[in-house]
């Protein structure tokens, strides 16, 4: 991994060559940034860093493998439904897929948003800081001026984009499968209303965006965990365990009062977009919960990361 990182050119060579002095930088704080004149605008530098992060993320074989798995699941669901056919006993959402390929998107997302998508996001988020620390590349990343906050922000945006891409991969794979295997036409919503196909596609967009926002909130959580450790697998495992634990809490009826505060309870609320009128109240509340998790976890990550001793 360190070889991969060294190929990256986010930090100018002359800065890279400077010896890493984490303590000096922390004690002096942002003053150092003033001392070294920035070569370009900080925004452009951040964008450059983000681009290199994205390249790394989407070239990493395990991330590609996860995206492929995510793309295969909707295809499999589609093929199974096509072969078996929706008999009268199946839940109607499944039988509706047989009648309209567009519904496959919603079925696939509702299944994957519970575990497989969070797993993929947790792997990337948990690895974000801890992976660099364990690979010994974190200190080089931090030698650039205006370092830690920007690095953390870029890491978060990177995770959020990965979550969005993962959701889009699922939606696109499901759309293509649905269009190929099933008839496509006007969409029946959960409320029994039928809307034209174009509106249906718009709702696919809403659902995908909402799911991506939920994944970004999980990404912030994973990032916070990732700053606490130098063992990436530990951060990934802790994030996944938190998701599973929270889902277990979500199904215990006696804990109903706690459930609105759990991140996982809101992921499936994208079904509000499939109602008529759209349940904007529920979805807005979900987005607020996502934002709250992002702010709290992000600030914890910042509090930990900006004051941490970087020893590797």
């Amino acid at each position: 991994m360190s070889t991969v990182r060294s190929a990256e050119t986010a930090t100018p060579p002359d800065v890279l060559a400077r010896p890493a002095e984490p303590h000096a930088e922390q004690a002096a704080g942002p003053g150092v940034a003033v001392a070294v004149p920035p070569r370009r605008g900080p925004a452009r530098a951040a964008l450059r860093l983000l681009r290199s992060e994205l390249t790394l993320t989407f070239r990493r074989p395990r991330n590609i493998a996860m995206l492929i798995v995510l793309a295969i699941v909707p295809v499999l669901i589609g093929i199974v439904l096509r072969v078996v056919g929706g008999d009268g006993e199946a839940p109607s959402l499944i039988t509706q897929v047989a009648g309209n390929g567009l519904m496959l998107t919603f079925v696939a997302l509702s299944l994957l948003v519970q575990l497989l998508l969070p797993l993929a996001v947790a792997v990337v988020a948990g690895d974000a800081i801890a992976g660099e620390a364990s690979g010994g590349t974190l200190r080089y990343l931090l030698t650039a001026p205006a370092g830690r906050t920007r690095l953390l922000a870029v890491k978060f945006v990177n995770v959020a984009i990965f979550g969005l891409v993962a959701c889009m991969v699922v939606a696109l794979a499901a759309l293509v499968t649905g269009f190929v295997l099933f008839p496509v036409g006007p969409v029946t919503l959960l409320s029994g209303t039928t809307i034209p196909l174009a509106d249906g596609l718009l709702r696919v967009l809403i659902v995908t965006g909402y799911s991506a926002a939920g994944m970004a909130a999980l990404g912030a959580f994973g990032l916070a965990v990732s700053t606490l450790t130098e063992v990436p697998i530990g951060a990934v495992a802790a994030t996944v365990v938190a998701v599973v634990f929270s889902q277990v809490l979500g199904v215990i009826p006696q804990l109903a009062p706690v459930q609105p505060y759990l991140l996982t309870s809101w992921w499936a609320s994208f079904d509000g977009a499939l109602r008529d009128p759209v349940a904007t109240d529920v979805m807005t509340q979900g987005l607020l919960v996502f934002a709250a998790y992002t702010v709290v976890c992000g600030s914890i990550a910042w509090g930990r990361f900006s004051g941490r001793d970087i020893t590797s």
Partner: protein
Amino acid sequence: MPSQWSRARAVRWGVPVAAIAVVGAAVGAGPVVAAVQGDPSLPDRTAEQLVADVLKAGHEKAPPAMSGTVVETASFGLPALPVPGGSSSSPMSLLSGSHTLKVWYGGDGRVRLALPGPMSETDVISTGKGEAWLWQSDTNTATRFKPAQGAAKADGAEPAQSALPTAKTPDQVAAEILKVAGTNTAITVENGQHIAGRAAYQLVLTPKDTSSLVKEVKLALDGQNHIPLRVQVFAKGTAEPAFEVGFTQVTFSTPAPENFAFTPPAGAKIQEKTIGSPAGEKKPGAAGAGQEALGKDTKKPRTFGSGWATVAEVPFSLADLSKAPTSEQGKHGGDPARVLDTLLKSAKQVSGPWGSGKVLQSKLVSALLTDDGRLFVGAVTPEALTAAAGQK
């Protein structure tokens, strides 16, 4: 240096702490805002004036068009029921837990109720043109209800109107109602309630009968329109309501007409049902579901006692119920027979001079199922039930 360093670290950790505080404050802001707003300033009303206002409002004009979100919370103290928990859209699930209903009312008998569940929805739509639809997305079924010819529309305000006795003015009727109710109920009015952002009066009905399990019933009425906004039923010895249904959000404006139209989607199963009597047009409301399930095979019900302490006797046998068709709904949870089975397992065996049977007690309702096939139900203590069972 170390002390400076640790101070810097403390400052840094102050940021997440502040973030948590901000989020916590945002979560807790609702009650605080309500408290800061202070008591709404509604003119004081006695119980008599308030009931007269309600009658006047119901008499002079139809209820205003409105839409809103209703939350129903039931904690009857029943054992965990085999009904889908959480936010399932099966009507049987209303028996326990908390549920959200969306309501649209457009006047002229146009009503839509939506019970959202995870990736499912149950809708009841009354189009106002003499037909009603029940749409269940999880079974992909649309059921059309048509009243038998000549059956009158039964709607919100009408029972109140038809119940009007011979008295002339709402004030007189109010006085009469309160006189009748006053024999077994203490009625007071609470002013200054905020419900769903509306200033509201609250009628508090307190049973005088000691054997009643009901401590009080609180009925909140909108200060302007006198529409009921919330009903809470408190059981004896509990601070939280055992049953509560009320608006959490309400808008008094005409909802979009699309809400009251329904065309069954292509591919849906369509069923036709005719409703014999106006009473059958009752919506599958919160309280109705349970009572209908229990009283389905009613043949000759008898009652004992009066008012709050009324005990109903219903001929009842378990064999009947297990034979009863349980429809396809059973597969998705909420099978009445299974619910009853669970209830009976938690029942207590009792016996007395009247025979023996099983007593089931919840916070609000007790039921006694005797071994000779009689069912006594009432919002009373089990002792009152066994006393009723002793009466021949």
